[in-house]
């Protein structure tokens, strides 16, 4: 018996609990490569992407991207173990699942209000963001980019993070006032100013009942 399929048919949030009681290697094949996750005793004990060992936070990012994309395929090889212990981790499956579900729920609740992917943000009152470890970690990584001004799309590319995740983190930072849109300098020439004055005069004559109060 083999466990295999497509993530579009069975999402990761259904698949991982199913395999949590088993020992073996879960292979996730997605558009950016292969992810090997070794499970043992209800824990993830090793994770590799194209044979590179992943840290717990890198694994979390990759899995969250797959939860979001629902794209790719999977296969589970029972009783396979990592070939060596280098880069071993120990993450309880239940804990990881809870985190992924929470992240997904949080994202869903604000998805309609996420900043647009190409809005350019710059640093503002950053101190407020350091009360939340997740935001602080992201801000540290994004700092050089946000100093110059960066969008969710450019940050996702530069940091290797899923776009929706970056939009969510920027949304939180924007809400806290830690970042703000990087305003482009308005180009108003003397000629335009003169023209605006003349047009305003004409507009006032045209709409004689124009009310000026707010």
């Amino acid at each position, binding site marked *: 018996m083999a466990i295999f399929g497509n993530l579009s048919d069975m999402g990761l949030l259904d698949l991982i609990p199913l395999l949590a009681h088993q020992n073996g290697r879960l292979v996730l094949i997605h558009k950016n490569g292969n992810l090997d996750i070794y499970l043992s005793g209800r824990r993830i004990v090793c994770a590799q992407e194209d044979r590179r060992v992943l840290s717990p936070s890198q694994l979390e990012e990759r899995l969250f991207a797959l939860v979001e994309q629902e794209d790719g395929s999977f296969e589970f090889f029972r009783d396979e173990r990592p070939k060596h212990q280098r880069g071993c981790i120990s993450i309880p499956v239940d804990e990881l699942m809870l985190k992924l579900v929470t992240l997904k729920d949080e994202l869903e609740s604000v998805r309609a209000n996420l900043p*647009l992917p190409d809005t350019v943000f710059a640093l503002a009152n950053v101190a407020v963001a350091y009360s939340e470890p997740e935001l602080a970690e992201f801000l540290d990584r994004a700092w050089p980019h946000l100093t110059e001004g960066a969008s969710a799309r450019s940050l996702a590319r530069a940091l290797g993070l899923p776009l929706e995740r970056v939009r969510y983190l920027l949304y939180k930072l924007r809400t806290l006032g830690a970042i703000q849109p990087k305003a482009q300098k308005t180009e108003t020439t003397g000629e335009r100013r003169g023209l605006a004055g003349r047009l305003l005069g004409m507009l006032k004559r045209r709409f004689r009942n*124009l009310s000026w109060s707010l």
Partner: protein
Amino acid sequence: MEPLKVIVTGPVGAGKSTLIRTLSETEVVDTDAVATEAIGKATTTVALDHGTLRLDGQLLHLFGTPGQDRFDFMWEILSKGALGILLMVRADRPKTIPAARNILDFVVSRTPVPHVVGVTHLDQPRVWQPEEIALFLGTPLERVVGFDPRKPEEAARPLARLLELIGTESV
């Protein structure tokens, strides 16, 4: 004389098409289609609205953009070289105010064009006041104008404010 354009943008249902119809002296070209999502009205703009206003020989083109953020690429293209941008926000629908802020953030960070905010539907029973919307958007109150886009004498008000700000170097 150089043709000028003003871009009218904002979330769905803010009154962008109504404003252009009220101000335009020529027949408005619109691209309404039956709404495929529950947006609170039967039809919505899917490409753009266009109308014109002539002020003593100077032709002013008024372009209304679609409200859905999947059309954000159009906001940037249309804004290039514009005299100004009018962001419209509906005072009685708090749900759309964050979307308005997203549009404003995008516009401010991508285009070097002056903007004003027009607040509509202030005649409804429960509304956000212009100063509350200014606070949420993080924009100076002098750039926020309450008005009714159905009434000609009020529809010109945000345009007048925009011209006033440009003329006095306040943008």
